[in-house]
């Protein structure tokens, strides 16, 4: 099976990121003096932009590469663009964070790019071996990124918790994959789907007694990574301990990539057993939304509040997963046009749209927190944000926009995203789920708006050190704001493309 040029073109984004990551490490090792940081930052930004361009150019040659290992279809292209855009924005935001906190700079960018390589493999992998390796690359780089503020006990402790629970979850995920491999005889997702469908038609549940067990174990593993309800105990501690920007990156890009694995494994491989895993999704969605929102009510630290809110957001996405499980789209023959791929379905469009908006608003919110927290991340509690409106109107405005979008106020991306999900939930007549989601949005309103009230109505308590203006940061935050507004006001273009 000699690999052809086409195979390498299909993993071009990953190749570019690896090359630039290695270059940054070399620069970090070789050059002396302060200029290393800027060179590394520039290299990282150029690298992520080039990879983004390569990601977009993937549209021209969809299909599979490396003997079915990598599948380039609409989902993988879409998420490549999403993840690489997030990496580019985080590189911009990181330039300011690293300078003020005085950390070694090269390794941060290198690890960021390598995490993106891992996520690229997670997103486009059609083979459980590559999925596992991609998951591990991105997880291990995020463990190290979490511990980036080496001398802060909180940061290393957060990384420790993330590491222990992350590897615990990976072991469960692996055990699920093993049982799937044992039951179906192959590790490539479409082949598993066909052989299990065949088994389902022939025998019935008795024969497939390993499948529900495998599905449960995989869900435990991925539940941790996606911080879905029963397994979200680690999220508040890790999101609060890690540097704000790293939390932003983990809670958006890593979560999106993990959702894609969930999508591919459950939607492609376990398609025949959707009745069984529908209940998994249903329970996880309800628990995530309620626990996330209730947890967020009494938080004083903004990062911890956003951690609970991200658990709730994962709940809304799981609602869309339940919708898919309710009526899996008719089986599209693999020979079909690969661009639409076999992942077209009512819920899938909602998931993609929601994840895009969620990534933009969550990253923007954490960017503002990183900015306000300033050197040593001391100012992250609610009282520090009091009176921000007067002191830094720009920052306060951005924060309000992101919080409103997280809540789902009209004219912001969040509103349309939630609307899309509720609409697909109603179509799949999952009334119970939709009502719980609505109630949760109301609860969420309280703690989102509380921050806005603090920022504008309350007099500033204590003094904040002057926040130096940094062009790179403003550009990055502006990108997030533009995406949120653009998807809020005229989403037509994206919706049309998603429907295709």
């Amino acid at each position, binding site marked *: 099976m000699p690999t052809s040029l086409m195979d390498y073109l299909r993993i071009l984004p990953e190749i570019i990121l690896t090359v630039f990551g290695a270059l940054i490490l070399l620069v970090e090792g070789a050059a002396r003096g302060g200029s290393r940081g800027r060179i590394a930052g520039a290299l990282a930004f150029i690298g992520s932009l080039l990879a983004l361009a390569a990601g977009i150019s993937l549209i021209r040659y969809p299909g599979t590469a490396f003997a079915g290992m990598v599948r380039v279809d609409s989902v993988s292209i879409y998420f490549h663009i999403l993840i690489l855009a997030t990496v580019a924005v985080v590189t911009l935001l990181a330039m300011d964070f690293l300078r003020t906190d005085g950390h070694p700079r090269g390794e941060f960018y290198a690890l960021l790019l390598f995490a993106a390589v891992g996520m690229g493999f997670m997103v486009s992998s059609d083979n459980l071996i590559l999925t596992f*390796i991609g998951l591990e690359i991105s997880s291990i780089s995020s*463990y*190290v990124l979490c*511990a980036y503020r080496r001398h802060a006990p909180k940061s*290393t402790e957060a990384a*420790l918790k993330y590491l222990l629970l992350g590897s*615990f979850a990976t072991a469960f995920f692996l055990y699920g994959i*093993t049982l799937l491999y*044992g039951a179906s005889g*192959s590790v490539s997702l479409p082949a598993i789907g066909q052989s299990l469908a065949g088994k389902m038609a022939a025998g019935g549940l008795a024969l497939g007694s390993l499948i529900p067990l495998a599905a449960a174990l995989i869900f435990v593993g991925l539940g941790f990574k996606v911080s879905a309800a029963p397994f979200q105990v680690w999220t508040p501690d890790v999101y609060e301990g890690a540097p704000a920007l790293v939390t932003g990156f983990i809670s958006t890009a890593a979560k999106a990539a993990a959702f894609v694995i969930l999508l591919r494994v459950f939607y492609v491989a376990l398609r025949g057993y959707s009745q069984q895993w529908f209940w998994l999704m249903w329970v996880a969605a309800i628990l995530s939304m309620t626990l996330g929102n209730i947890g967020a009510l009494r938080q004083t630290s903004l990062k911890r509040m956003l951690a609970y809110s991200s658990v709730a957001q994962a709940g809304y996405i799981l609602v869309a997963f339940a919708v898919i499980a309710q009526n899996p789209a008719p089986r599209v023959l693999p020979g079909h046009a690969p661009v639409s791929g076999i992942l077209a379905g009512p819920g899938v469009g909602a998931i993609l749209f929601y994840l895009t908006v969620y990534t933009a608003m969550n990253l923007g919110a954490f960017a503002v927190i990183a900015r306000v927290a300033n050197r040593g991340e001391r100012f992250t509690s609610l009282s520090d944000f009091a009176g921000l409106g007067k002191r830094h109107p720009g920052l306060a405005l951005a924060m309000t926009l992101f919080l409103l979008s997280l809540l789902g106020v009209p004219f912001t991306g969040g509103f349309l995203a939630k609307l899309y999900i509720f609409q697909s939930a109603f179509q799949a007549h999952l009334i119970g789920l939709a009502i719980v989601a609505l109630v949760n949005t109301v609860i969420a309103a309280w703690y989102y708006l509380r921050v806005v009230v603090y920022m504008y109505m309350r007099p500033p308590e204590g003094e904040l050190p002057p926040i130096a203006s940094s062009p790179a940061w403003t550009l990055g935050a502006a990108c997030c704001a533009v995406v949120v507004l653009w998807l809020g006001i005229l989403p037509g273009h994206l919706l049309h493309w998603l429907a295709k």
Partner: protein
Amino acid sequence: MIPLSYYLILSGILFTLGVAGFIVKSDLISVFISIELMLNAVNLSLIAFSHYLRDMTGNLFVFFVMVVAAAEAAVGLAIIIAVVRNRQTLSLDEMDLMKH
């Protein structure tokens, strides 16, 4: 001719011992060792399935699991060293900076 279920039950036992270790153990390194035990248990069932299905993929998968476990152990212990440098203790229940 050993039935396949013997191997799978043995790997189930080892996996459960790993999970029990993860919950019961009180110091960082022992918790991390229990995770390695869980990964070993998974490797055993992978090789058993690979032999039963007469298919090479199981062995290949175990090979990559070992490589990944090595990188994970390396980074994991680096983080444990960084934690001990900051907190001077290995006990897990003192890791409650963020509980309050």
